[in-house]
Structures are given as C-alpha cells and as structure tokens.
C-alpha cells in the first residue's frame, strides 16, 4: 500500500479525532503537501456536511409531554402474555453467539443419541440394551443355559450334553461347558 493509500485509509479517523497526536500530525503534514489527499479530505468533509444536513437538521424537536404520556400508557397497559414470550425468544435466539449455539447443540445431541447405531454398547448409548435378548428357546429336551457376559455384553446360549451320550469322544465332561 502506498503512502497516499495509507493516508486515505486514516482520513476518516483523523477527521473524527481518533488518531494519536503523532499519527494525526503525520496525516496533517502529508495532506498539506499532497493535492490528491487534500482533495480526498475535501470530499470527506463535504460528505460529512451533507450527512449532518440530512440527519441532524431534519430532526425537529419533539414535545416531551405527549411523548411521555404515550410511554406511560404503554407501561400501564397490560400486554398479551405471548408478546413477552416472543420478545424474549427473539432476544435470546437471535443474539449472534446464541444463533450459532442452537444448531450446534442440536447437532451434538443428535450425534450422542445416534452413537448407539454406529457403536453399539457405547456408554452414551442412551440406555439401550446392548445384550442380545432371547425371546424363546426350545432345546428339544436338552439342558440349556442362558448366560450373559457383562464385560463384552455377550449373550450365550449353551447347550449341555444330555446323559444318553451325544458326547463324541468321552472326554472328561467336567472340562466341557463354560464356567461363568
């Protein structure tokens, strides 16, 4: 950026009195010697005068008594309950930081409650049962055990050998079957 561009960037702040004394002196010194920046200053001052003419000169004084009466009337009149709620909602949900916060909270809550679909048995699974549940069982006369292993959340259906020998090899039966 050239020196003139820098000066013109600072012109508004200089005319508004927002520069430090040294910065202000630098701009003033430059404008005194640069025709282009002097013209930029003239235009900005002309704009400011026009703005003052439109915004300040147009606003004639308003009478206080009728104004105050109307404010009092509003204070004393009862408003429908839903106006207050809708006003409150507008203030809360359209505040810039909150406006972002609401969708973020919705997405986070959805993610937490959907976690169980992708990671069954996770601690945030919303309390869903991660065990398989046995609705019915018919072992056709055999002994059967229903077992649950808590750490791996596993349901086990264990079929014991009946006495009449489905045992193929005659192995020590005490070694057969899980010992939970």
């Amino acid at each position, binding site marked *: 950026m050239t020196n003139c561009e820098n000066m013109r960037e600072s012109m508004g702040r200089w005319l508004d009195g927002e520069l430090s004394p040294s910065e202000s002196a630098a701009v003033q010194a430059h404008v005194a010697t640069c025709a282009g920046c002097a013209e930029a200053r003239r235009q900005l001052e002309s704009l400011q005068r026009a703005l003052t003419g439109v915004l300040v000169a147009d606003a004639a004084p308003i009478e206080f008594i009728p104004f105050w009466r109307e404010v009092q009337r509003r204070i004393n009149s009862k408003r429908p309950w839903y106006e207050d709620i809708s006003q409150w909602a507008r203030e809360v949900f359209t505040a810039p930081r909150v406006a972002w916060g609401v969708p973020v909270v*919705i997405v986070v809550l959805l993610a937490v409650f959907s976690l*169980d679909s992708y990671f069954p048995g996770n601690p945030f699974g919303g309390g869903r049962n991660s065990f398989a549940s046995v609705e019915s069982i018919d*072992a056709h006369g055999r002994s059967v055990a229903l077992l649950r292993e808590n750490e791996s959340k*596993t*349901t086990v259906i264990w*079929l014991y050998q009946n006495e009449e020998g489905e045992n193929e*090899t005659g*192995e020590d039966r005490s070694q057969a079957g899980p010992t*939970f």
Partner: protein
Amino acid sequence: MKLAKIAPRLALLFSLSLVAQQDFTGAAEKNPQSVQVTIRSILAENKNDEFDAKLKGMEQQLKSLKYRSYRSLKDDTKSVPWQGTQSFDIPGGRILTVAPQEFQDNRVSLKVRLTQGDTPVVDTTVKIPNKGNFILGGPPHEGGVLVLSISAAAQ
C-alpha cells in the same frame, strides 16, 4: 459479509433437517431390504493354549467361556431377505437355519434353528443389536465343543 449473517440461520435449518430425518418413534417404519448374517464356527477345547489370530476381536467374548484354546473352523456370510430363510453348513454335519423376522428399535429379530442331520438340536428366537452378535455353543466336536458366533447386520 452477507454469508456471515445468514450462516447461523442456514446452520439452524440444516440441524433441524437432520432432526426431521430421525426416526423417533422406534417403530420399523422403514425396514431395511435384507439382513447380512455371518456365522463363525469355532472349536473350543482344552488341549493347548492357542488363540487363533483369525478370531481377533472376539477374545473377550470367547475367553469368558473358559476354554484354553480357540480355533476358527469356518466363516460364512450370506444375505437373507426379511421373512426368508437361509441355511449355513456347520462343521460336524450340522445345519444352521436363520430367518430374519423384523427390524425394530435398531435390533434384528432372528429365528435360528440348529439341526444335526434331520434332528433339531435347538430352536430359538433372539433379538440382537444391529451389527451385534450372540453365541450359541456346546455341541461336541473333534474333542472339544463347537461355538457358533451368529451376527446380523440390517442392510
């Protein structure tokens, strides 16, 4: 600048559209097309202390059965339509027949029958978490016992 102003509103609309897509009723209003059923046939025995590397991921489940060694015999995966049936060959001349019943609350309801030849060994109906499994074990096999891991994933 304008995008920065409307971005929070767009984000809110997007998040609300995600909410609208959720199925909160828990009912099986949109049934998946079929179920992918996987049967892992495993030999559990006490002859040695080996754990087949193919069974990685199942250590916790299998070791709770308290056998000393576990060996993968066969893995079989088939797609089964809802209300249809599918049979799986199981070592030892057995057949496992699976019939997916319904999908509800992210759980798959399965009817399962194990037969030895023509003789039914066990009939059971089990509800398992989608992509989860249960263990059916106990039938003797080659000096140990057969352990079947039955898992189902709705597609």
